[in-house]
């Protein structure tokens, strides 16, 4: 109990930790919001693929510049993410390979190449590389102030863009044909959406790691779906769930020495998901049970009274 109290006190008193936690919360917020649209466009696993493709991008960026700097890594990751997306498009459009297999191929081959580059860098004995493997599972506590402000800033911009384009994305998600008829450029919107997903993934790579960062896009959105049927509320809820996961992930992993941030954030999101599955007010198990029972009782009453009337 004392250690819990201590860690809360640390969160309140340590300014560095406070900034990191805030950054992770902003990241969770923007990923949660964008994840809703990715969910509706059935592109949840696209985020996972893009995240894995980022690894060779980071390694190449390091090999080219020789310095460990987050902005450079982010550029490399974005470039690799776009390349991966294009590769999936080309494979599905120009051959008989289906989308799921194309995603599997791109994910594993990019990640394989990334692992090759990573081990090459490690074996070359370059001292400054030691932090590069932290990008696999993420380590929020290792971030310096400029990294945190970059991550927080990008996340904030993503959340604002997502809020501003809410109507357009809603249209795209539910009725792309109508969107086209109403004069929107569907391909432009689609590209924007894709770009938001890539940016959200890339923003999270240092804090949450390439292996699991996509879960911040998927899990909060799916959890929110259990509480509401309206997109606006779903986006807000998902953002809040993502924020809570980011908070818990950054905080718990900073307290336990060995724990990487990514898996802890994902587990926090999974806990929210479990609660939503059980108690969600729209589709939760409990709600569904209660609604069914009420309907059965109503039916029995109605049939009993109609029998009485007939008699």
């Amino acid at each position, binding site marked *: 109990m004392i250690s819990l109290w201590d860690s809360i006190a640390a969160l309140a008193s340590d300014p560095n930790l406070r900034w990191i936690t805030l950054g992770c919360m902003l990241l969770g917020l923007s990923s949660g919001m964008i994840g809703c649209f990715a969910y509706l466009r*059935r592109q*949840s696993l696209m985020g*996972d693929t893009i995240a894995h493709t980022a690894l060779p991008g980071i390694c190449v960026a390091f090999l080219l510049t020789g310095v460990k700097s987050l902005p450079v890594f982010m550029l490399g990751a974005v470039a690799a993410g776009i390349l991966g997306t294009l590769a999936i498009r080309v494979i599905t459009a120009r*051959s008989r390979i*289906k989308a799921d297999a194309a995603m*599997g191929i791109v994910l594993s081959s990019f990640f394989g190449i990334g692992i090759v580059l990573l081990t090459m860098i490690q074996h070359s004995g370059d001292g400054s590389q030691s932090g590069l493997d932290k990008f696999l599972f993420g380590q929020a506590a290792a971030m310096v102030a400029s990294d945190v402000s970059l991550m927080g800033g990008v996340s904030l911009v993503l959340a604002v863009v997502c809020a501003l384009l809410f109507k357009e994305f809603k249209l795209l998600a539910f009725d792309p044909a109508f969107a086209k008829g109403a004069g929107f450029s569907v391909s432009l919107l689609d590209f924007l959406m894709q770009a938001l997903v890539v940016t959200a993934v890339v923003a999270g790579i240092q804090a949450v790691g390439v292996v699991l960062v996509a879960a911040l896009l998927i899990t909060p959105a*799916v959890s929110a779906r259990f509480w509401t049927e309206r997109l606006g509320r779903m986006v807000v809820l998902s953002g809040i769930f993502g924020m809570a996961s980011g908070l818990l992930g950054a905080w718990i992993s900073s307290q336990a020495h060995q724990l990487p941030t990514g898996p802890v954030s994902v587990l926090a999101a*999974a806990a929210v*998901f479990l609660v939503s599955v059980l108690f969600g007010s729209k589709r939760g198990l409990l709600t569904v049970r209660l609604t069914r029972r009420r309907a059965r009782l109503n039916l029995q009453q109605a049939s009993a009274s109609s029998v009485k009337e007939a008699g």
Partner: protein
Amino acid sequence: MSSMDFWILLTGSLAAVSCAILGCFLILRRMALMGDAISHSVLPGIVVAYMISGSRDSIYMLIAAAIMGLLCVLFIQWFNNRGIQSDASIGVVFTSLFAIGVVLVSMNARQVDLDLDCVLYGEIAYTAWNTLQIGGVDLGPRSVWLLGGTLLLVLAVIGLFYKQFKLCAFDPMLAAALGIPAALFHYLLMGLVSVATVSSFESVGAILVVGLLVIPPSTAYLLTDRLGVMIGLSAASGVAATLLGYLIAIWLDASIAGCIVAAAALLFAAAFLLSPKHGLLAAKLRHSRLSRSAA
């Protein structure tokens, strides 16, 4: 070629062939990402088996991992039935299970003889040192026995029920109408994928297993229209990727498992461009011939 090279190549080839055979059925049923999900989900099973049994005894690991793999499939199915679309339920289930595994590994780093590197890309380079000894007799690397047994199991089950698996892969409706228990074969296939995944896990790691499950079968899929041929080609390209990848790994001094998957991707790219039937070049040639004959 030293004996160490030989054991590494044999281990890699055995893993690649088991995965390549099963991958064909996954690809045809459009369930490539199910392989992704299973290969991630077996991790908590492996770690818990380590922690309970206190040894690296393979049989516990196999059982625990097969259970986890099937649980993962059941969870995905269950959430799917609750109205969550399939890609999202796959994403939620496997990331959560994998996260549990990673947290267990990093919390018990001292008791569990596994590190995060091994989880991601295996330790095939050390296979030759980890030998199986019964009654003081050295029987060769343990992973070779494990992977060889897995391959025999896969060959036996697929060989025995080849017709049923084939029908379920191409026409599940017809299979159901003919009275073939499609659900049973679905779970049988998933169980085999879990077993193949976990026995390859030590050698190539969680994420690169996906590469062995998906890339060689896709290469074969571009080269033929017959299932039997596709399985053979898929296994052959898996073995070729292992040989090529090992050479690249020695040349670059890099991760062997990573190089094997990268080599598999190279072979896929070659098939994608040059396949006589479904390749990009063949399509271009056909197209230009057609337009010339029309003119």
